[in-house]
């Protein structure tokens, strides 16, 4: 296994810039997720690592070797495609054996058989080896595609949304399976997905991208709890973070977030964080308050000076939780509450923001103040 270094890489398709000045490093044996919406450049990045796309500018290294001009076959990477890309005219066994057969100087027939059998057993597809791809279900095809990647122990595994087309139940199952496999194989893995839940639950580190630009590169906990900008904050989390336009009134030592519906004082520790980040405020300025749906305290009555009213718009029970959509002075806000909380449409409820979990963003730059 080896680390992958992407250094100031650009990808241009004519005038379109798909990846802009991307720099990140996937450590040896690390599970790195490239996360972002469609067209953010994550797949282009993966394809550049695989060698399937030329690099417009910058360098990509696998281990200590710069691979910009190296053919895909010589990069020692394995890739699992979104469409699985199984060879339709070969059996499952032959599909899995193919990368080894191409290195026949390295593996004897007996070794090939042994390795395919071992990989098939790991993936529980050893009973399917004689079948053709067309005879397999989506989940089985996906396992064969992974099997074809793991038979030859490459330096890096590249996965391009490999489970995005499975049904929800199988996807949940495969998330665990893939993470387990990565740890068992001690593999360096770069995994592309648009599903934030997949990234949060599987990755050691997440690189979140938008419009070709790296937004944040950090461990899942940091991405979730300390998003660097409004895009990251809104992209990660389900339901997504609520954003409310407010004013920040700075009056000597007292900082207050002011909105038509509420007034929230900023606690000293948060103030310290903002100031330590280099921001200096005076007077009154516009800010965006970000609060995750689960970071509200909800009650039927006013519980404190800082609690504010909201009107229930709709409720969505989700087994153990309930998503409650409310309007706060014209702003739509989503709350995540216990299933036992059962308000009716039109009810007036009272909300209080959990201060240590709130976020403040600059409306001009979208960057977080802390």
């Amino acid at each position, binding site marked *: 296994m080896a680390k992958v270094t992407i250094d100031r890489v650009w990808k241009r398709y004519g005038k379109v810039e798909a990846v802009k000045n991307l720099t990140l490093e996937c450590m040896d044996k690390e599970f790195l997720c490239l996360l972002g919406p469609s067209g953010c450049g994550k797949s282009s990045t993966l394809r550049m690592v695989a060698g399937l796309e030329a690099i417009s500018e910058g360098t990509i290294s696998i281990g200590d070797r710069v691979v910009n001009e190296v053919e895909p076959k010589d990069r020692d990477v394995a890739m699992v495609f979104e469409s699985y890309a199984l060879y339709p005219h070969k059996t499952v066994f032959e599909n899995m054996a193919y990368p080894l057969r191409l290195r026949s100087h390295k593996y004897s027939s007996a070794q090939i058989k042994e390795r395919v059998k071992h990989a098939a057993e790991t993936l529980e597809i050893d009973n399917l080896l004689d079948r053709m791809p*067309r005879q397999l279900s989506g989940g089985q095809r996906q396992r064969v595609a992974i099997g074809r990647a793991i038979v030859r122990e490459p330096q890096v595994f590249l996965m391009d949304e490999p489970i995005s087309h499975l049904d929800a139940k199988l996807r949940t199952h495969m998330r665990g399976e893939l993470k387990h496999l990565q740890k068992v194989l001690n593999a360096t893995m770069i995994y592309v997905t648009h599903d934030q839940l997949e990234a949060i639950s599987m990755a050691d580190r997440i690189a979140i991208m938008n419009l070709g630009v790296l937004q944040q590169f950090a461990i899942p906990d940091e991405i979730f709890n300390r998003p660097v900008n409004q895009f990251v904050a809104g992209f990660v989390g389900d339901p997504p973070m609520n954003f409310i336009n407010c004013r920040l009134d700075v009056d000597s030592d007292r900082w207050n977030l002011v909105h038509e519906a509420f007034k929230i004082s900023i606690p000293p520790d948060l103030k310290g964080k903002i100031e330590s980040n280099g921001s200096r405020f005076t007077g009154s300025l516009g800010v965006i308050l970000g609060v995750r749906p689960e970071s509200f305290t909800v009650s039927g009555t006013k519980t404190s000076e800082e609690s504010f009213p909201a009107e229930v718009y709709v409720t969505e029970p989700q087994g153990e939780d309930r998503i409650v959509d409310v309007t706060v002075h014209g702003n739509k806000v989503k709350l995540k509450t216990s299933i036992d909380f059962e308000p009716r449409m039109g009810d007036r409820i009272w909300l209080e923001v959990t201060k240590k979990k709130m976020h403040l963003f600059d409306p001009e730059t979208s960057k977080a103040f802390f």
Partner: protein
Amino acid sequence: MAKTELISRAEKRKKKIWGTVTFIAIIVFLIWTLTPLFIMVVSSFKDLREAFQIPQLGDWKGVVQFFQFSPTGRHYKELFSGGTDFTPYIVNSVVASLSASIIAVILGSLAAYGLARGRIPGEQHISFWIISCRMAPVVAVMVPLYSIFSAIGLLEASRWRNLLCLILAYTTFSLPFAVWFLRSFFEDIPTELEEAARVDGCSDFKAFWDIILPLAKPGIVAAFILCLILSWNDFIFASIFGQQAAKTLPVATAELHSTVDIQWGKILASGTILCVPMLTLGLLIKKYLVQGLTMGAVRQ
């Protein structure tokens, strides 16, 4: 409810009528196309006297007479003995059409694959230009081709030179067709398959050879057979470029009909030899044309 039932009944009736009309049209078409062939094949095994016992219009008993004959292989024997020997003509036809078709399919596959993957600037224009070559009538290229072949000495009376002329002429016309035909087959093969092969350890050519070609096999076989039929059935190129030294089967058959004599027996036998292989191939192509390409490899 009743109205819906009425509509569905009317629709069923309409479908039935259309079905019957289609069936009758197919039968008429089959009779129209197959009867001459059938008469030719059956008559080639008849004595000439029996072959020309043509029933009068409305004489249904005469139809029965058509099938009452003592089979003979005389005409076939005559094609290969006595004054005439058709063996070289058959060999010429086979060599010229097979060679041209093989060349057209090999070059056509490579060109079609390149065009299908669309990494060539102006690829659409190139594709159109290629197929427009096929649109030109044969006579339009006859004079320039004649002039070129003459200039490079291919029209001298030599069997192999004249055969080369035919191979080049057939390839000129088969290649654009093969490129155009195969391009759509290659376009239907998902690019991920060759990308997967390249990551698995293939060079570009190895990925084409190992993964893409086997998947395009139905298309390649179909293109090969269609090119073969085009070349095999050609008369005009063969009559001009083949000359006497590399006479092909259609030209030799035509020469059996002269101003002094029409050798019907030999014409029927030779016509049968000309048609049967291509008919068989025509039946084969059907299987390949309908065969699926991706066979469930890629998520649909």
